[in-house]
């Protein structure tokens, strides 16, 4: 499958270096003509759901794209279900409605699968990335996975990777590393840049290490497919 083409004039105008994904991966998503890529992130208050959407938008911007990230505007409390959104396009984004038909879902807490319908509105060819150690069978997701193209539902033990590198169960940057490998929309370098905009010093370094491990894990998986 062809990789995303970045609009050369737009890139010049923004005067940023375009960093393309290092290699073509099997399930790379292509931004279609007149199609905004829409990503919805589900998690819980305190897991950095909103930060994840913001970092994703920074990573996409770093690669010369237009991006918009926004939270679901709830009065977030620690532990309560939280949703955040990110749109990526090659043109300025005017749309302000919440994302109702996502192309990609990132689920930061698999327990939400029993609590709310995270799959609501998912594109029939959409992608799903779930933070879990468990298999799709264990999660009861084989039926949903079967409705999507093969390999579009991917799991990543992001909490375990976060615990290893950060010592805290904060899976957001880890999942972005996985997202980069899984979709090819953004590169690992862009994720690293976005982490550097949000965090500094040791925390940034640890998040980069965690995201890099997640990226390698899913890139290997994609390569093996």
């Amino acid at each position: 499958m062809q990789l995303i083409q970045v609009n050369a004039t737009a890139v010049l105008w923004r005067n940023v270096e375009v960093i393309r994904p290092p290699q073509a991966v099997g399930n790379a998503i292509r931004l279609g003509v007149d199609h905004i890529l829409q990503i919805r992130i589900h998690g819980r208050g305190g897991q950095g759901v909103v930060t994840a959407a913001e970092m994703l938008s920074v990573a996409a911007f770093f690669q010369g794209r237009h991006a918009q990230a926004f939270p679901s505007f709830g009065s977030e409390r620690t532990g309560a279900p939280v949703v955040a959104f990110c749109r990526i396009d090659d043109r300025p984004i005017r749309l302000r409605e919440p994302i109702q038909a996502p192309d990609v879902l990132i689920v930061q807490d698999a327990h939400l699968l029993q609590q709310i319908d995270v799959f609501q509105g998912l594109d029939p060819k959409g992608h799903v990335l779930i933070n879990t150690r468990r298999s799709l069978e264990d999660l009861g997701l084989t039926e949903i996975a079967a409705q999507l193209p093969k390999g579009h539902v991917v799991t990543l033990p992001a909490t375990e990777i976060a615990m290893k590198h950060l010592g805290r169960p904060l899976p957001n940057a880890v999942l972005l590393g996985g997202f980069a490998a899984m979709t090819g929309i953004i590169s690992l370098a862009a994720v690293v840049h976005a982490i550097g905009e949000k965090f500094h010093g040791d925390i940034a370094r640890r998040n980069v290490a965690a995201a890099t491990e997640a990226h390698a894990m899913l890139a290997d998986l994609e390569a093996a497919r």
Partner: protein
Amino acid sequence: MIRQIEGSLAVAEAVALCRPEVICAYPISPQTHIVEGLGAMVKGGTLTPCEFLNVESEFAAMSVAIGSSAAGARTYTATASQGLLFMVEAVYNASGLGLPIVMTLANRAIGAPINIWNDHSDSMSQRDCGWIQLFAESNQEALDLHIQAFRLAEEMSMPVMVCMDGFILTHAYEQVDMPTQAQVDAFLPPYEPRQVLDPADPVSIGAMVGPEAFMEVRYIAHAKQTMALDRIPQIAAEFAQVFGREAGGLVRGYRLEDADTAVVALGSVVGTLEEVIDARRAAGEKIGLLSIRSYRPFPLAAVRAALAGVKHFVVLEKSFSVGLGGVVALDVRKAMSGMAAVGHTVIAGLGGRPITQASLQRMLDDVMADRLQPLTFLDLNWEIVNRQLAREASMRRSGPIAENLLRDIGQKPAPEAKP
């Protein structure tokens, strides 16, 4: 420099580039990130000389702003919702005294029921307070309007409120082109007050005015707002020259040429509407959009000229005058008086209800089929409305409305049946 940042930070940085000398702040969502950002710049020494005052309430915030502005300092504050209501007495004083304070209003609904989400009830409650009110469509425009606002406020010696949709803009990350200090300095000269409290040349500001001159003072406020109708587009044009992009002005039309139908709106919903207009244009409909960017002063002539050719116009607004209907719609209808076009009022997005393309399409289908009522509430859940009205008709002690409706939509457990 083009950056991908939060709307609140973009506004904070733009305000800092305007070299404010006094910032007073009291936190209230969704405005808080703006003054937090400015506070960090003052404390970090990047915004200097500037005094950042944490005050004990919004009433104090505006009172301090009045004092510092009267003492000749360029003064900024920000608020939202109940915060604006709490400072209202001082808000009227700021305009009555002709003090060029700039305030961001991160638009948010007003309670009760308490609601932190976006609509335009707060700024509309102050449409008659004598402040200029500008509305931003995007974070770029919010940033740009603040730079224009200081220039406009100080030229006219009247306060300016820059209204930006709470959360939808304030909490959105999107790219903005942040100007340089040199650009802003070239556009915005140092503040030269028209009146100032100076011990070397004492004056009193804020005299009591009786019936013999009060009407004249009020009329002058109106005359100045009328003059601002000329200055606002001129300042926007000068801004475009210095910064190389379009922002502000009185109104902005989108695909209005040859349009039979026009939607009139203000704020960030304009972006979603543009998508809808494009889709309907592609399907062959002659439809366009008018964004009102200056709500006070209200550009009657510009609105009338922009809508001169339409047969139908729909005012889509996030505000509501209980017991009457639309707020903005009244002004648009006044602009259109004597014209043959049929007007509709659509109340939408109250308390943060998303205004979706799908809902807008359905509403416009109704316009095209001549089915749209003169006053329509977009996506109103009639089932729970009628259930509550029936409840009230059938019993005296029907209970609190908000809690009943939450129960009806399943967000609260039903009370246990009494034996």
